[in-house]
């Protein structure tokens, strides 16, 4: 059995602009094992988010091969990618990106509903996950009734509801104060260890990066360590 849940080979990403082509990623090679916590660090604009978007099949590389949970993704159609994303990948963004019209519980249930599950089968797992992050009492609250830290905790459990194998977090604590960041980091580690999830976290926060199993430093479009 392949222990690697994510494998990228020679990933390149360029963007055409009016002033010519911008090369963001220049041949990324990486393999991430099940249950591993990997931090991606590097200065702003180096391509951390672009790499995460490609690893999470939100975006296609200009060239290169990507394998997620033994599935080669380059030949898949957009709809097949969407289904794979739904079943395998969870996202946590810098800003929570919760749906404003829905309650915390409904937001957590949403990926499951997209997968075609019935609301009745999702309520209990969603409640259990909200309870794990200390938000059992806030399940009926809408995002604007939650603090920034609480919103981000809802976003984290939303990424886990479909039993996703990989959670990609793009600056998850970038919008939080020190105390909330600490709480969030502890939570990410606890969830990763207890649920045996793979986390790939793009961050500027060196303290967060130091706690990871592995740190990948992105510089000039390449991983340098």
């Amino acid at each position, binding site marked *: 059995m392949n222990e690697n849940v994510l494998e990228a080979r020679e990933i390149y990403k360029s963007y055409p602009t009016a002033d010519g082509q911008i090369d963001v990623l220049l041949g990324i090679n990486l393999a991430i094992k099940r249950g591993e916590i990997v931090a991606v660090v590097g200065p702003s604009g180096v391509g951390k988010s672009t790499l995460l978007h490609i690893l999470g099949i939100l*975006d296609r590389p200009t060239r290169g091969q990507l394998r997620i949970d033994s599935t080669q993704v380059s030949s898949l159609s957009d709809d097949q990618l*969407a*289904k794979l994303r739904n079943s395998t990948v969870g996202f946590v963004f810098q800003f929570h990106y*919760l749906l404003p019209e829905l309650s915390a519980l409904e937001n957590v249930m949403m990926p499951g509903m997209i997968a075609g599950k019935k609301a009745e089968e999702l309520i209990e797992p969603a409640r259990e996950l909200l309870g794990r992050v200390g938000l059992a009492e806030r399940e009926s609250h809408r995002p604007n009734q939650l603090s920034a830290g609480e919103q981000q905790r809802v976003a984290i459990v939303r990424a886990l509801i479909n039993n996703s194998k990989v959670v990609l977090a793009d600056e998850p604590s970038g919008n939080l104060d020190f105390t909330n960041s600490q709480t969030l980091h502890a939570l990410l580690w606890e969830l990763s260890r207890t649920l045996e999830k793979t986390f790939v976290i793009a961050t500027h926060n060196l303290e967060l990066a130091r706690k990871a199993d592995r740190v990948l430093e992105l510089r000039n479009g390449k991983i340098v360590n």
Partner: protein
Amino acid sequence: MLCLIILVAAFSIISTLVMMVMEKTREIGILKAMGATSKSIRKIFMWQGLVTGLLGTASGCIIGYLLCWVQQNFKLISLPADIYIISAVPVNMRVWDFICISAGSLAICFLASLYPANKAASLQPVEAIRYE
């Protein structure tokens, strides 16, 4: 006249739905990031257009029927009898007319929803999430 009304109605539906797609761009991106397919996003906006059309058609039929009934019974819009022979605007309500006009309205709503729904479905998740 009818053609003009249809054109205005179709443009209203298209512009309302295009505005909604623009307002909801980030939410569309979030749904796509969670695994929603283009087909399901298209379906959401097609339903939105059809529900708007159904409500509009139903209220149009009810208001039209009431106005016709009032005219039939109370002759609110009168005509000078010495010029037109008849003393009020005549009304003849036929079920078939209501059916045809309702079907036509719904068809227009369906067609007018196609462009915004396709626009929403074709949004790339990364671009949609970054949309300000």
